[in-house]
Structures are given as C-alpha cells and as structure tokens.
C-alpha cells in the first residue's frame, strides 16, 4: 500500500531554530522513507541567517510527485524543536493530528534583555489543543547524557517522533537507526544512544 495517491500519505511539519538540526531530522526521515520505497518530498525553508533564525521543513511521505507545501490543517505530525517556534506550526496541524514539542527555549536577544515577551509552555499547549491537535511534550531536561555530555537533541527528538507518534507506522525504526548510523560513522555510538533513548522517551500527552 505504498504506491499511488493517498494510499499511505503522511505529512510532517517541522519547525525550530537554525542550528538545532531540524533540517537534518527531515533528511534522515526522508532517507529512511526512500529506502523503504515510499514517495518523498522534503521542502526546507530557512531565513538568511546561518544560525538563530526560524527554520521550517515540510516532509511529505507516501506520495510520488506531490506538491512541496503541506496545506493548513494538513500535517499528520508537527515536530517542534523549540517552544516559541512551535506556535508557527499550529496552523498546519491536522485536527486529531499529533503535535510533538521538544520544550527547549532559545531566546532571541530582545527577550534575553527583557525587552520582549516569550510564550509560556502553557500558552503553547493551549493553542495546540485549540487547534484540535494531540499534545506530545518531550522535556528537554530529560535529554540523556553519554560520557558526561548531552547527546544530540535532534537525533533524540527524531527517536521520540519515530517511537512515540504515528510516524513509527510509516517509517521503520530500525531503518531510521541504520540511516542515522550511516550519516555520522564517527559518532555512531552517541547517536545510537540518542536515538534509542528517544524511542523510549517519556512523552507527556496530557
């Protein structure tokens, strides 16, 4: 059931801040899906800045030759790597879809200086629920460490998305793990730890 329009389509809308590895998560999902023979289109949009700007990626799985943009209320899954950026994806989650937030806070300078507001976790959760989505929260404080250093957050969140949301029914966890291992051969062990821990991550669905 992998060929043809609409047979097994699954859209993932990813947001975050430049430097968090959002584009990489999207690439890894796409690579695994392609190896599984699924149709894939990945459309990244980043601002001009190398780091610290808003980043979004639209991943469309299961259809060949699909248009790059996910329509409003079209995403089966949202993955937000940053608390405030999550708000920019509310428009795109499907009612009944899953909204995974990794609650890291990346404050712009004006917020850091107390000159601008930054949304509370509660505010973000309220908007996500108002859009009819299922809240899936991953606490950044739970990010595991290996040999005294935190593992890569993006690979951990990728694990959580595969292990704890419907994405796991579309791409195979072992396939994704293999793609991750192949991507960074030198860091295979730490990424393995991150990914496996993500698969089992404590996801708050309240």
């Amino acid at each position, binding site marked *: 059931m992998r060929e043809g*329009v*609409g047979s097994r389509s699954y859209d993932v809308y990813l947001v975050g*801040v430049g430097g968090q590895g959002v584009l990489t998560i999207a*690439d890894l999902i*796409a*690579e695994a899906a*392609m190896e599984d023979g699924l*149709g*894939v*289109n*990945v*459309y*990244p*949009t980043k*601002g*001009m*800045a*190398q*780091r*610290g*700007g*808003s980043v979004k990626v639209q991943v469309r799985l299961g*259809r*060949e*030759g*699909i*248009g*790059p*943009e996910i*329509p*409003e*209320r*079209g995403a089966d899954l949202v993955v937000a790597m940053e608390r*405030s*950026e999550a*708000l*920019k994806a*509310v*428009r795109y989650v499907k009612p009944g879809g899953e909204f995974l937030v990794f609650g890291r806070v990346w*404050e*712009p*300078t*004006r*917020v*850091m*200086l107390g000159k*601008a*507001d*930054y*949304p509370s976790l509660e*505010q*973000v959760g309220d*908007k996500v629920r*108002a*859009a009819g989505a299922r809240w899936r929260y991953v606490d950044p404080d739970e990010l595991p460490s290996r040999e005294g250093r935190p593992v890569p957050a993006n690979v951990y969140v990728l694990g959580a998305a595969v292990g704890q949301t419907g994405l796991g029914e579309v791409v195979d966890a072992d396939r994704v793990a293999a793609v991750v291992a192949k991507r960074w051969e030198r860091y295979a062990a730490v990424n393995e730890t991150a990914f496996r821990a993500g698969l089992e991550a404590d996801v708050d669905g309240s």
Partner: protein
Amino acid sequence: MDHRAGESVVDNHSSSKKRLITGNQAVALGALRAGVKVVTGYPGTPSSGALGSLIEMDLEGERHVEWSTNEKVAFEIAAGAAWAGQRAMCTMKMSGLNVASDSVFSIAHSGVNGGLVIYVADDPGAHAGMVEQDSRGYARMMDLPMLEPMTVGDAYEIVQVAFDLSERTGTPVFVRSVTAIANSHAPVMVMEPVPPAEREPILERDITKYTKAGSAIAQAQHRDVIARLEEAGSAIREMKLNELQLAAEPGGLGVIAAGAMGPYLNEGLELLGDVVSRQDPISVLRVRGTNPFPGDEVRALFDRCDTILVLEELEPYLERETWVEARRAGFDGRIVGKIDGPFGRVGEYGVKHVVRGVREALGLEETGSGGQDTVWDEAEALAAARPITVCAGCPHRGTFLAINQALRELKLKRDEVMVTGDIGCTILGMNPPFETVWNEVSMGASVGLAQGYVHSGLKTPVIATIGDSTFFHAGMPGLINAVQHQVELTLIVMDNQWTAMTGMQANPSTEEAYQPPGNRRVDLAELIPAMGVEHFFVMDPFELETATATVKEALELPGVKVVLSRQECAIQAQRRGLRAGRIRVDDEACTVCRRCITVTGCPAISLGEDTIVIDQGLCYGCGLCAQVCPFDAIETVSEERR
C-alpha cells in the same frame, strides 16, 4: 516526456540510481546527462544549488564549470560556447536575469548553434528577500521558449528536453523553476552522466547572424526569433510536454495549471473529493511549456468546457493569453483566476488555492477554516520575533560598529547620515543593534545611490557599503563614475573574501588556495587604487579603535574615499579550524551591564546568573565584545589571528 502528472521519472536502465536530490541538483545532473560542456552562473537563492553541486562534483577537464563575476558575464560565456557549437548552461536567480537580460535579448535574436539553456529560479513568496518577480515575462519579451518542471524529478528530465529543443530550433531555452521545487529534495532516478559530444568548435563569420549592424539585419533577426519560437511551440506540442486530459463528457470545468501547480491540482481535487465528483466533468491542462502560449491545447479546453480556471503563481501571463484566445475562439464562458476571480498576484500558491479556485469556478460556497484562523493568528502573534543578525565572529559586525562610533565621534547624528546598503550579508547592518544601513536595491546599487544623495545637496557625509563579491559584480562601474565626476563620498568595501549569503561560493577575492586550481585572486587592495581613488585605506574590522579612526579620517577628507575593511568570513575560517582568539570572562569584574550584548548583538553571548556567558562552540574570538566592555571584564586570552 509523456508520463503522467504526479509520477516521478523512473528509468530501469542498469546504470541508473535512485537518489534523494534537490530540484537544483536535478537541473545540474540533467545537464550532465545531456552532455553539457560549459556551465556558468552567479550565486543567488534559490538557484545556487544547481551550479554549486557541479562545482562540488569536481568534474573532469572535458567540462568547464565556473562561478562568474556576474550573471551577464556568465551568460555571455555560455552563449559564446553555444555559438561555437557546444552545449552550455547558465544559472541564476530571477534578479540575475535582470542583469543578464541585455545580452540574452541579443543572443535570442541571433539564435545559437549548440544547445543553450538558461536556468532561472524565481522565488514566489520572496523567502530570500528581493523583488517578487515573475521571470516568465522575460520569455515573452525575448520570444524564447520557457519550460517549467512540476516536480523535482521533472526538473531532471526537463533540462534534457530543453537542450534538445534548443538544438532542434536554434534558440536559447529557459528552464524556470521556483523555490518550492529548486530547494525540495525528492528521490529521482539519476542516470550516468554523458560526456560532452566531441564537436570541433564552429568559427562562423556571418555578420547577418552575429551582429546587429543595421536595420535590415536587426529586422531579419526579429522575424527569425519569432519563427523559432513558433517552431519551438510545435515541438513542445509534438512532445506533449503540456498534458491535456479532456473529460469524456462535454461541459463542466477546464483547469489550466502552470508548472508547480500541477501536483497541487491533483491534491486539491482529491481533497474536494465528493464535492467535485457530484459536479460536471473536469478537464485538465498541466502546462510545462509556459512560453509560447499553448493555444491549441487551450482551444481544446474551450471546445469541451463551460468554465475555465487558471492556476498560476505570480503574474497572470497564461490567464491574459487565455482571455485573448477566448475572444479569438468565440468562447464566452467564465475564466476564473486573478482578473476575474479570487486570486492575487502576491505570494506562493499551494493546495488551498486549488480548492478555493475550483469552488469559485463551480459556484460553491467557501468553506473557510471554521474560525480556526483566529487561533492560528493568535498563536503566531505569541511567537517571539527572531530578527536576523550577523553570525558570531562576523567581521561585518566590527565594520558597522566602527561606522557608528566614527559618526558619534564626529558629533553626527545617525539619522542625519545616509549609509546606503547593498546585496548580501552586508545588508544585515540594517537590523538592530547596528541600524547602520538605510536601504537595499540591487547588486552594486549602493555606490550609485550614494552619489545621488550627494548631488541632492546633503550637508552631511554620505557613506556607501558593499561586499567584495557585490563590488566585483556591479559596484565597480559606480565607483569609476564617482571617481570621474569626483563625487565626495566614502565607500566601505567589506571584504570577507567569500560570497557568503548564498552559501560560501568563491569569488575573485577568495584566496587562491580555496579557488579551483589555476584560478587567480584579484586583490581589491591593488584594484581599487588603480581605479583612480585618491584616498584609499585598509582596515581590520576586529580592531575597533583603529577601524573607527580610519572611518573617521576618511569621512573628513574631500573627494572619493574608499575603505577596504578586510577579514575573512568567520564561518569559512572556522570550517578550517581557525579562531581569531579565545575569549574569557572575568566573573568578578563583570557587572552584567549587558553592554556587550546590546552593542554587538553577538549570538555567542548570553546572560548567566551574575555574569555574561560565552558559548565557546560559537565564539570565533573576534574580541569585539572585549573591546566594548567598559569594565575590562572580557579578555582575549590567546591570539591566533591570522
């Protein structure tokens, strides 16, 4: 290319391989498959990845691939190769086509011998800034065929078709893409590259073809270019590049979907599902060849349908021609689009435009979002703004700070001194905390604009700012003009030695070691004085005090002054493991006055409990924060400056 819309291009040839590639890479790999010999271009988002991927492939000597000084030069190189009978391609963003257009017009009228493909990427939605421009207008003005891919896989195929079409009809051919396709990644069956054909270079002396000397020649060429476009139109029809699917029953809706709208049409109709199937039959024309206008296919829609819906991003080019064609054919049904209908000419289109257009055309009520858009708007309003600034370690930071400090020391108010801006990372001086730069027009425009402000009678000094690649691209004529006319201004050339904003391409200022083998560096410190500039300074933007003094001195001198602010892009230097220094904060001395953050806006600095904190992974050690700290609480501990 007769495969169905919505299907990627699949080939079972044994040497082929399915790869996850971008739309830009698809263009590059398609050109290799077509046996291209010469590829030139100038970087510009969203087009850069096409030529960029060829540069990275480190191709053998039988092909020539280069980043040229600007798009006009790039195009002329490709055109020269095509006149000599070789296959050539030139790549650019939409703004680049404005620069190249003078020569493209002329070559269009002369025609070509070898295949010549112009790859231009437009940016509906203006994701990367700049004018939201529809380059299809050029194809119309120039009488050149234009092909547009519907998907990433399509881009791979369509470039190969473009080369064949170019050689078959003797005309340059545009391949136009948009951001959504150029930057998307999708699996594509990629075939082995084909080496360039061994063709003896053609040396043909024929002033009726290769010059524009005189009315007779020029008018004959005008007739020729019109005839070639017509021939290309026939070829496009014959190849069925435009996919016409007529409903079995007469009546109902006919939809014209241009380029990237093709796949969205499938999805939109799928979403509408029952609503549509209860209605009259739907006929569809998916257009890959947007110039010349596919008149025959559109007339076939008129014959079959009652109403026409035109789906195209940006300007209503196909739509206007559809109106003209309707008049000629006596079609009196409604034509829904931008002229009569719900669509605007601004922004990127997607599935929702299909749904909205089909509903309008079928006379169905709009469904709306059921009040959800209020929730969406509120959510987005809560999100923190992220204005972009220069990277940690960016040398431009020092230049902006030096300009601002020099103005302060000269007792000049910032809102009294015009600082013109230019394209590239140097424009980030417009944003906080610097707010140094006032405007952004086009490549090189800062230098000309500044002269206009001088002639307007301003009593305060006028400053122009520009990057190295932009200066080579189109800033030099402006400076020569200023020298000739002796216009009193200060030009600050921010030389970071890379074309950075578009993804770190080499340019004439890049060190030879990082240029392709055999390339030579053009040293701005030699070039600028040779242009007749009397007052020329070189400064290090990481030395704030001397840099400020330099800018101040220049501002006080008469005539044309040029300051070359020189320090390599920190991103590139860091990629080679370099650091300018190492920064340490003295926790005791730090009063958390925040001056380092408010003045430099450096992303590597954040507030800690009772001291500021430097992210050592981000920090390049430029030392600017140490230089602005009023309490000597920040120091540069080891100088590894090159």
